[in-house]
């Protein structure tokens, strides 16, 4: 099953993706994207958080979603991963509709939601095992993978400590381990580098790059442009609930740095006028 072509069923209601959007390859059998969003929209009361987002994330890509605070990144990713029911539209994971066949779609992806609690009265080791067992994995496989994951994420010596006593960065890492335990084909990580120290961040990057190299797909949201430019091969710029530009990093930044391009697209950047007193000390 392949998702309908971009904008197909929702073009009338939803905004079409803007100019930076890559035109699908017209070759006879286009590869099934790892994640395909089709006209996703969500409103909270009066506020429209996501206003018709369609996006294809090619399999095997390292995809960055960037946008200012409140752009709708987390809402979009929640709807894409089955945590938040969209008002309109749906998402396909490797061709499986997340909202029609949720159990199947959830098997294919590992997610790291932002701003949710963990079962923090479990030890780190127990939490990751729990994630594996909930997915119906075999105990022996879970045990072996937990040890490897904890070692790879440098959490080995705190494996028996309760997660409630972890630092913020360690919590991110243990949540990432929980998302990786079942070897998903797609990883959706919402702000994975927030409050993670530089050493752990490069550690996580190494793991993710290796994962992409072996054919997995990673989607990360972030507002650290530098990081996205160095790490990702594709990027989508989201603001006010819409996709402003999407494509390979080279296409989107068009010669400029991603940060400058981002500021130009999103349009803020008011010059620091009227703060003269700041220079007078």
């Amino acid at each position: 099953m392949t998702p309908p072509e971009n904008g197909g069923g929702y073009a009338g209601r939803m905004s079409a993706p803007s100019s930076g959007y890559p035109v699908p390859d017209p070759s006879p059998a286009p590869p099934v994207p790892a994640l395909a969003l089709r006209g996703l929209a969500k409103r909270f009361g009066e506020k429209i958080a996501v206003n018709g987002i369609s996006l294809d994330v090619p399999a095997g890509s390292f995809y960055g979603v960037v946008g200012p605070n409140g752009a709708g990144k987390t809402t979009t990713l929640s709807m894409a991963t089955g945590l938040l029911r969209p008002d309109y539209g749906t998402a396909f994971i490797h061709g499986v509709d997340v909202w029609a066949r949720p159990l199947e779609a959830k098997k294919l992806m590992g997610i790291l939601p932002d701003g949710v609690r963990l079962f923090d009265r479990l030890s780190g080791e127990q939490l990751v095992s729990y994630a594996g067992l909930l997915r119906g994995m075999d105990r022996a496989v879970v045990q072996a993978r937990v040890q490897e994951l904890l070692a790879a994420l440098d959490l080995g010596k705190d494996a028996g400590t309760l997660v409630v006593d972890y630092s913020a960065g360690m919590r991110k890492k243990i949540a990432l381990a929980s998302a990786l335990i079942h070897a998903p084909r797609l990883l959706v990580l919402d702000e994975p580098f927030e409050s993670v120290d530089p050493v752990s961040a490069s550690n996580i990057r190494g793991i993710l790059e290796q994962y992409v190299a072996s054919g997995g797909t990673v989607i990360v949201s972030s507002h650290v442009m530098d990081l996205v430019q160095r790490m990702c091969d594709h990027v989508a710029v989201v603001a006010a609930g819409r996709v402003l530009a999407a494509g390979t990093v080279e296409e989107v930044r068009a010669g400029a740095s991603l940060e400058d391009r981002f500021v130009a697209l999103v349009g803020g950047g008011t010059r620091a006028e009227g703060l003269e007193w700041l220079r007078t000390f």
Partner: protein
Amino acid sequence: MVAHLLSLKWRLLLNGFRRSPLQIVGMAVGALYAAGIVLACASGLVALRWADPQTAQTAVVLGGALVITGWAVVPLVASAADLTLDPSRFTTSAIPMRELLPGLALAGLLGLPGIATLLASLATVVTWSRSFVAAAGALVGALLGVLSCVVASKLVTTAVASLLASRRFKDISSIVFIVPLMLAGPMVTAVVQGVRDSRDYLPGLAEAISWTPLGAAWAIGGELDAGNAAGAAMKVLIALASLAALGGAWYLLLKRAMVTPPYTGGGSRKAGKAGLFGTFPATPAGAVAARSLSYWMRDPRYAGSLVVVPLLPVLFYFGSAQSGNQELLIAVAPLTAFLLAWSISADVSYDNTAFALHLATGVRGRDDRLGRALACLSFALPLVLLFAVGSIAVTGRWEWLPNILGCSLGALFTGLGLASVVSARWTSAVPAPGESPFKKPPGNTAQTLLVQFAGMGVMAVLLLPEIAMVVAQAATGSAVFGWIGVGAGPVLGLAFFTAGIRLGGRWLDRRGPEMFAQLSNNR
């Protein structure tokens, strides 16, 4: 600066209301409760105006000493200390100490406990309104006493701030605190008995305490009324000196706390302890059960209710001993069964947003429900059986054993089934993870109450057959009804249990994202 801090506290209080009108209801209930206590205390103190001076002095001094002790001790055990104006939040604001200190102290008064204490203390002025001098003295004493309360409380919270910040201490103190709370009834009875027996001894005790920092301030009015100016002067000095000492100690501690934030880290532990995850079967339902049972032991919000259970027979024993009705004790098993089963009716709300993991892994609703119910069952079943047989053994009413067993098992299984349905569909306002079980929870309190009452109503209907058997045996005295009950209870219970797991599971499968959205809102 003092005015700033006061207005900040006032703003925080008001903004709390703006979050939800239900908070106003909660506050109003709290205020009503406080007003009741203040009214009782104040009318007592006013009545003492016409009592003989010695009785009045004894009551005022002992009561005042108790109040100061309470202010000092409660933040220790309840960890419910008011941290809205946590001094550490002012670290970066460079506020001079001599302004921060009085500001924080006065702001500590602004709040239900502070206002209630102040009003009750001012009532002592009426007690001593026998002469102008005595009333004036009582006024000075009341103000000194209330200030001592606040400063003592601040001193204790600052002194143990790093202790209070440690998770382990919070966990333990909030569990331990339940024990005296549960046994408050028998304890008050015992104390009243003790006071009655030692009435002659109390004035002496009050006299002794009035020379200590705990009682000096409260004794000033009485001393002046007795015409003992020298004694009054001494006590003013003692009260002032102790207030200064408390304030000085607080000043020093606060100064140190401002530059050394509390250290909350713990030691790290190595891997290799799968705990209950190694014991339960390696299936999704087994994993949920292992996780839930770990929480029953580790999370104070669950462990708190577990600590209550062994106290139930004690309460029932005292209750039946006092009323002289031994039969009351045999109700302990069905009641325990009901309480334990119903305790998982807000299980998903207790997860808070950690429920995202269940949603993300796509665990089936049925496994989720079954795991949680099994975790509760694993300790509730032996406990309920023990209580049933134990209570019968103590009362010696063996003819009731079948009926009580049937009723208890029916209540346990039916309750678990119903709770599995309720927690799959409705969220409740419960304390967030890591917070004290006594903390006023955020979220929709009205819905919580409605769901709880409606759920218990449905429960009563589902349990009608078992209840009918108990009533029938009580009315006719025929043991036949007991034997019907011991058969019907488990059979009906298991049927409701299975149906509840299935229905709850189906609802959770269908409305998982909606449940999660509600949980995110309640946060």
